[in-house]
């Protein structure tokens, strides 16, 4: 996170693509806030005080990410408006809360750490490459942070799968159908179901090429991160390939 402290004010002319970054940042801030809320909810079902403390800590970190993204927006002269009740984010949040309602800690970790974080990590890493100046540094630093979270959760999830692979894979597939279907719709090249309610005006996707990004690139990178995570957990490649192939586009 040191990179966040190194931000230097830039002139408006450095960011002629500000409206695009405004929408990219709005999605990032919304995602971080949803993650923060998810960890808060997770803390509430942890019986072990140490685990609960870790969940609270993660929540605070995700919230600090949201703050950093918002600051990065101000730095380039844009107001970043989040909306955790936006069409897709709301559905993702509801999927997580269903796991909370069932006091299913593993389900919560699967949704947040495998699915949402794969999307965040891969997207941030790609944005970091093309975003100018300090904005790129912020995305890069937060991507590195998210990687650390994911590594921690992976150890827990791997142990859980090793104990009962069939049960674990069954749960993962059920959540995949719910969560990854929504993420795939978010990452589709076009928003076929209407406005996402996070972008400020029209959908940002068609404009992403102006900053050397595209919805297809972000989707591809995210799916790759996701499938690699499933590989690391030990799921059979032929099974996860079919899951990916069946996602909506």
């Amino acid at each position, binding site marked *: 996170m040191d990179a966040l402290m190194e931000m230097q004010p830039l002139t408006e002319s450095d960011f002629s693509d500000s409206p695009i970054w405004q929408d990219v940042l709005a999605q990032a801030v919304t995602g971080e806030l949803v993650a923060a809320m998810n960890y808060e909810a997770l803390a509430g079902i942890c019986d072990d005080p140490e685990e609960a403390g870790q969940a609270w800590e993660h929540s605070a970190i995700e919230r600090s990410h949201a703050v950093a993204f918002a600051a990065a927006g101000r730095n380039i002269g844009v107001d970043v408006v989040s909306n955790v009740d936006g069409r897709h984010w709301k559905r993702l949040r509801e999927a997580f809360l269903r796991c909370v309602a069932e006091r299913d800690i593993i389900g919560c970790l699967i949704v947040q750490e495998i699915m949402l974080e794969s999307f965040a990590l891969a997207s941030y890493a790609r944005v970091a490459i093309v975003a100018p100046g300090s904005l790129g540094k912020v995305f890069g630093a937060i991507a590195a942070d998210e990687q650390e979270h994911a590594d921690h959760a992976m150890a827990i999830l791997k142990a859980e799968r090793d104990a*009962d692979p*069939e049960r674990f894979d069954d749960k993962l597939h059920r959540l995949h159908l719910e969560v990854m279907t929504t993420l795939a719709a978010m990452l589709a*090249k076009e928003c076929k179901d209407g406005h996402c309610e996070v972008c400020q005006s029209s959908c940002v996707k068609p404009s992403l090429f102006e900053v050397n990004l595209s919805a297809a690139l972000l989707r591809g990178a995210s799916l790759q991160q996701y499938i690699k995570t499933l590989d690391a957990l030990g799921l059979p490649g*032929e*099974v996860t*390939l079919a899951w990916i192939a*069946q996602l909506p*586009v």
Partner: protein
Amino acid sequence: MDCTVAGIAPSAAPQVDFALVGHPESWSAAADVFSALRGPEQTPLPDDEIRDILPWIPPRAVCRVAVKSIAAAEAHGLYIDSFIPPDRLDAGCVQENLTRVRAAAAYAIKAGARIVSLGGFSSILLEGKFDQLPPGRATVFTTGNTLTVAFIVQGIEKMCALQGRNLWQSTLLVVGATGDVGSGCVRCLAGKVRRVQLVARNVERLRRLAVELEGEGVEIEIGTDLAQFSEQADLAICAASLPSPSLLLDNIAADALVCDAGYPKNLSPDAETSRATVFFGGLGQITGGLTFDPDLRGILNHHPFPDVAHGCLLEGIALTLEGRFESFSRGRGAITPKLVEEIEMIAARHGIYLAPFFNGDGPLPLTMK
């Protein structure tokens, strides 16, 4: 194992004796696989979506393969796709594609495969440098090219017999003659024809091959220009994919017999410009039993006849059924008639034979003359 496309694999890791590493031959072949994996209830992915998604998929198993020998042996394996995008098979993407082949090899090693067949471009990319693959103490690799050569040679001989051609009086043109497959074919057939014409890009390698064949008592010509020879040949083996079929077919003798042994196969006879008989070579058929899980039969191996596959993949299967886990083909131009005869016998012992004849237009009639 009953692993439905959408379902979950059972917890116990199934046995993996062999792995077959391949890649999509074309975008339409990739689309067929995706369509099958999506299932009939979902609309197929549009072509542009497949082109966007496929390059991001890390090498992985596409399906499990079970094979039965006519000698009662059974073997289980994986078909691993390296997901090299079909439009990135050119020289500019060698490093990127090698990375994919290495990852596919690592996947096979992790799955516990004892022998891995490197199909299609996988072995071409490696150029026999198996040391570029990740080390696997219990895994060996084979290019599978010896069985490919066996099926090409068998195909030429059988087609000549069917068409009443006199092989001994023939002029054989081999395109890609200095490659692993091309040179293997030349060694097997040089002593059985009147004249051989060898075409390749590297003159020095051509010279070396010609010197090697001097003792066969055959008339040998070498060259780098295909047009220099093609109209004189009445038999041709195309062991390298040509940029355009017309380079060969527009100039070949009117009634020539052409074996398209390149990968991907792209010689389609044009009724208006060529009367040559073109058949796809290097393919074999498993007769003891072949199953895919999920059931991608006829999709992964999209041929007009059932249970047909490329010789390079079948070599690993034949060696597994024989219990010979060894790097039979190492891809350095070392394929000899003796090795070809040996792998032919192993394959035949397990019911793996030359595939029925076909080309891009479909099955070929058995008697054409």
